[in-house]
């Protein structure tokens, strides 16, 4: 593990995460013929929230103030486990795909606890919904990561990325494509995007992620929001780098790092564009229809796993 790489990835994670959220919001508005917020609006939101006072419910316990830090730090840690610019992730010594899934689950667990703790009705409702969705989304996430892990022969994400350093046309095999599709649906569910949750509403009947954040304000809210956008960036990185590691740097010279950053940004923006398209062209599903979508993701991931044997 080397310190410069760690710091570089940390800074990239912290800086890129709000930008990606901003991009998605802005493009979505453009597609709906609105002007939309500026690209860097999420940065202003975070800074403003950080400077504000907090109002905390008198029923809240220590869990309430503990949760934002866990949510924020767990998504940062996951980010350091995923290869971003080079094939070697900074913290890859500490764990692979299983650690990623575990840390994501930890963050989600505390997010749900934070929603439950102040005893507001909406928070509990949001937590309950989040856990219901996570219970189906998580197996799909695991299966699709395991699919590439089986092909690569290791659950270490850096190993997987190195093993998939093949010509691009070979990556277009059914296993990869199906696992990618499954993980894309999971991405929509985990980041609270439209067919599952609407990130732009505070309507009590439909909100999931926002419901858990209702009681948060000031610094805690900033950490929650920043953590959520980091988690989104990390999942997107997982999708673009583990499944299509085209252009990722294999050494640490400045030139290849620059090229890698460029390729990474292009892939990231393409994926963000795909998310925007899905969000704009679909309506939110009824809550009871969400399991149908997620079970489709699950079966796709299962098929992908099976087709590693089927189409070898």
């Amino acid at each position, binding site marked *: 593990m080397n310190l410069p790489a760690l710091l570089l990835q940390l800074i990239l994670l912290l800086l890129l995460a709000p930008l990606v959220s901003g991009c998605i919001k802005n493009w979505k508005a453009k597609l709906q013929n609105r002007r939309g917020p500026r690209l860097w609006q999420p940065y202003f939101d975070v800074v403003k929230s950080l400077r504000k006072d907090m109002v905390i419910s008198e029923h809240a316990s220590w869990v309430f103030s503990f949760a934002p830090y866990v949510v924020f730090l767990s998504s940062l840690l996951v980010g350091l486990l995923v290869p971003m610019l080079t094939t070697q992730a900074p913290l890859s010594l500490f764990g692979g795909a299983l650690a990623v899934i575990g840390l994501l689950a930890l963050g989600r667990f505390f997010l749900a606890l934070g929603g439950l703790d102040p005893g507001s009705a909406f928070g509990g409702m949001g937590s309950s919904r989040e856990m219901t969705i996570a219970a189906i989304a998580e197996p799909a996430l695991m299966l699709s990561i395991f699919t590439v892990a089986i092909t690569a022969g290791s659950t270490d994400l850096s190993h997987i990325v190195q093993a998939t350093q093949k*010509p*691009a*046309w*070979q990556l*277009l*095999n*059914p296993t990869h*494509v*199906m696992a990618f*599709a499954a993980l894309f649906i999971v991405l929509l569910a985990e980041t609270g995007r439209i067919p599952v949750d609407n990130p732009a509403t505070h309507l009590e009947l439909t909100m999931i992620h926002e419901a858990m954040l209702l009681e948060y304000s000031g610094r805690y809210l900033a950490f929650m929001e920043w953590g959520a956008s980091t988690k989104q960036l990390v999942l997107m990185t997982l999708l673009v780098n583990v499944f299509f590691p085209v252009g990722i740097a294999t050494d640490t010279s400045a030139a290849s790092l620059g090229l890698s950053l460029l390729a990474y940004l292009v892939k990231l923006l393409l994926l963000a564009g795909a998310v925007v398209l899905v969000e704009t062209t679909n309506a939110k599903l009824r809550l009871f229809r969400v*399991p*149908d979508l997620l*079970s*489709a993701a*699950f*079966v*796709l991931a*299962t*098929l992908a796993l*099976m*087709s590693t*044997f*089927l*189409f*070898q």
Partner: protein
Amino acid sequence: MNPPAHADIGTQLITLLAAGMLVCQLLLVVQRMLLTNIRLFALQSLLLAAIAGVVAYFHNATHVYVVALLTLVGKVFFLPWLLNRLVRRIQIHQEIEPLLNAPTSMLVCGGLTLLGYIVARPFTSLERLGNNTLAVAMTLLLTGFFLMFNRRKALTQVLALLTVENGVMLAAVALTTYGMPLVVELGIFFDVMVAVMILGILVYRIRETFASMDTSKLSQLKG
């Protein structure tokens, strides 16, 4: 990046397209809107036509081009158009709740895929192109039958029959002989075409008589 070998690309393309057909089939199993179902079937047939085209191109089997063309004209354009018109005429756009709900049927289909794979495995050495395209064909057959008894609307049952036929065609195109003799293929093709046209009229009659497309009503005595 070295350019891939000629035959490799063919194999890869066929495998990818076959997987696409499989995904279409699974989407058909969970989708309840009739018009979307018809579109999915058209997409699946388009993929089949593409597979036939790839086989014909990479193995210089000219008569397979005819199969590709027939599939394109018949199953991508004509039959979907016919079924679309039928849906518009009988004014029913949505399937009622199937016997098994969506997640369960997805799981059943996953199991059927596994079964298809196990059944097709002894024959994999016979295949000259694509990897395990026969397994996909088997799966299309099995899930087609499953779709047929899982749905109650006569129209979706017709669609299920058509996907079974797609499976048969896939097996024929991708297995050893690069397609069955052309006469046999033409026979199957027009057989299905005529069957669907007759079934279309039948569906319309069922709807007229029972004011519903629910085939389970056919077993009731009418008095």
